[in-house]
């Protein structure tokens, strides 16, 4: 039996409130109690951080149906290269993941081709159309870990209410892409000085806040959790803070671009800065960072949304929304939140990527407890590097971060005891 001993690393395991320099043992693909003298291999992690495998709960793997953008094989390699051992796939594929058959197809393909754990979400509504509930029961039996219409937003409050109530029976969290269609219209970028200057249709903050407020009310009404995806507006943070203080089962997540970039980046009409929800202003960045620091926002993720070069290489209003993110998100957040801003500790950053998402979606991951799957990310929190999109292993390179330099990076990704990527 292979027994691996990782020596001298700083083990940060937020699920167990553990932060100490110690050895970590892996046996048979699981975290093991120390077995001195029995190790078959030893890695020295001196100066490095040994973290539970990072989890990204918001990833578009694009299969089935859009394999020219990304595949389960390439998307999971990009995840591994970013330090992720588990990712949660969004359902806006073709066909959309609104049936057990599609979930089973994804899981079988992932079993053959994925190099990290792939968890599936199911659609809230059939075809993501917002009209009729998808079959939550059979989706649950097929193994989905959450429900979302991501990319779309259920506009009808009654349907959303019943979705949340019905999901409760299975213990499934409903995740929502918060966008009020009538307010946002054909909006492309944050509505503000820059949208006025550039003549680009605006996407007002209220278009997100309206639905965040709706979700708070429905989570309260149904006494069941709703998770608000990719929060971009400072107003949403304030709504979430107030609701969470009252004990409402509401949560929110943040993507790296929403704290790294502003709407001014659209000045060159580069579609690699076009995503949904859009980049906003410095005020929003401040509010989001404050929300991360005070525990209002508990999840970090990428909204990794690969698109082929030729799809993005068009007029700004014709280009699809979305950017890649798996390979840079940890570094972007580490650099901004831990190093530059000192908003949170490294241990909290790791918690936002491990214990918190595992708790939200009831995943048996995100911990280094003895007996847990040996999903481990080795991190060099002080390593400086520059992102080169041409070295990206994602099938698509639609990133606004080409040439950006950050401090902090995953250097080895271990899934079930096996190294799937190393720098």
């Amino acid at each position: 039996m292979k027994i691996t001993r990782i020596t001298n690393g700083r083990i940060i395991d937020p699920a167990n409130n553990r932060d100490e320099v110690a050895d970590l043992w892996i046996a048979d693909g699981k975290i093991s109690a120390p077995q001195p003298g029995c190790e078959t291999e030893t890695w020295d992690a001196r100066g490095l951080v040994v973290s539970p495998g990072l989890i990204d709960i918001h990833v578009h793997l694009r299969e089935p149906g859009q394999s020219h953008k990304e595949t389960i094989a390439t998307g999971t390699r990009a995840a591994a290269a970013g330090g992720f051992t588990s990712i949660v796939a969004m359902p806006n594929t073709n066909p959309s993941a609104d049936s057990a058959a599609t979930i089973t197809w994804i899981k079988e393909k992932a079993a053959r081709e994925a190099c990290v754990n792939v968890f599936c979400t199911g659609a809230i509504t059939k075809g993501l159309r917002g009209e009729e509930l998808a079959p939550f029961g059979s989706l649950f039996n097929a193994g989905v870990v959450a429900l979302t219409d991501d990319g779309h937003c259920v506009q009808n409050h009654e349907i959303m209410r019943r979705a949340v109530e019905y999901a409760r029976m299975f213990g499934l969290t409903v995740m929502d892409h918060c966008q009020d269609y009538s307010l946002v219209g054909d909006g492309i970028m944050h509505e503000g000085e820059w949208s006025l200057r550039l003549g680009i249709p605006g996407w007002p903050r209220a278009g997100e806040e309206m639905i965040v407020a709706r979700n708070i009310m429905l989570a309260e009404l149904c006494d069941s959790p709703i998770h608000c995806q990719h929060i971009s507006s400072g107003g949403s943070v304030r709504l979430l803070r107030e609701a969470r203080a009252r004990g409402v089962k509401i949560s929110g997540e943040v993507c790296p671009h929403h704290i790294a970039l502003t709407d001014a980046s659209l000045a060159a009409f580069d579609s690699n800065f076009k995503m949904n929800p859009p980049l906003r202003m410095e005020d929003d960045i401040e509010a989001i960072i404050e929300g991360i620091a005070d525990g209002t926002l508990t999840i970090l993720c990428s909204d990794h949304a690969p698109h082929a070069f030729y799809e993005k290489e068009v007029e700004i209003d014709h280009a699809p929304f979305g950017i890649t993110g798996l390979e840079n998100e940890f570094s972007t957040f580490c650099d901004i939140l831990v190093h530059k801003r000192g908003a949170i500790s490294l241990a909290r950053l790791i918690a936002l990527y491990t214990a918190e998402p595992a708790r939200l979606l009831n995943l048996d991951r995100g911990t280094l407890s003895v007996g847990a799957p040996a999903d481990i990310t080795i991190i060099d929190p002080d390593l400086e590097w520059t992102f080169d999109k041409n070295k990206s292993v994602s099938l698509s390179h639609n990133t606004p971060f080409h040439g950006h330099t950050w401090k902090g990076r995953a250097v080895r990704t271990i899934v079930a005891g096996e190294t799937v990527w190393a720098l």
Partner: protein
Amino acid sequence: MKTWNRKDLTGLDELSSGEIEFLLETARAFKGVGERSLKKVPALRGKTLVNFFVEPSTRTRTSFEVAAMRLSADVVNISATASSLQKGETLKDTALNLQALQADVIVLRHSSPGSAKFLSERLDSSIINAGDGAHEHPTQGLLDIFTMREKFGRIEGLNVLIVGDILFSRVARSNIFGLVKLGAKVTLVGPSTLVPRSFEKLGVRVVHRIDEVLGDADVVNLLRIQHERQRKEYFPGLGEYTSLFGLTKARAARLKPGCLVMHPGPINRGVEIDSDVADGSQSVILEQVTNGIAVRMAVLYLCAGGAGIPA
């Protein structure tokens, strides 16, 4: 002295005041060409210009065509329906084909903001923006400014009102960018839905009562107001618009004697402007059209590599 080193004109926002002045000076020199009996100079002989109009336009396209012919360039017109965009070809691919056909200058009219800039960064051909969505219409902005400067001899200090649907207007934006750079005092007037207060960040004043500002204006530039399906939620109707913002005869009577009445056309008589006012002595609407030729000659000449102001 040559102060122009751009191959493209995508907007006035990115130009310096010096560059705008230089364009206007060049246009002034070209205006004389149209006043001769032989309205032609050989400045762009042998150059090929493609008018690539993905959105319909008659006035602007014709103006560019006349301007190019007066410079002795060869002109080809392509409309959206005649282009391969209808067959699913991308804008970039269509434009690359035009470049491969050795177009020296492509004049683009397109519904997407930033489309001219997008092509300018990907092609060696000169790209002239003839209107990109609600973003800019730089030659219209220039010809409006040219007309004002011709009448007043200066732009600095002029009180310019721009009235109407500012939010969706590329003409308004190019006017704002150019006029503010040259030191005019710009006031935007219109319904609060179409003239949001955040426009003040562009260095202009926002007013919703036209009668408060009309009397001080040196120029009133009226924009075409539309009330088609996609604008319905912005204001209740054309009748109410006319009563609140239209340049009626009664309002026109309160204008300063020297105040210019401008309109980029096409005008809606009886809506944003009274028919008699449009034809009145203060109206320079048709002079704008004539000046458009000179301005476009200057733009084509400079972007296609002409040096200095021709004698």
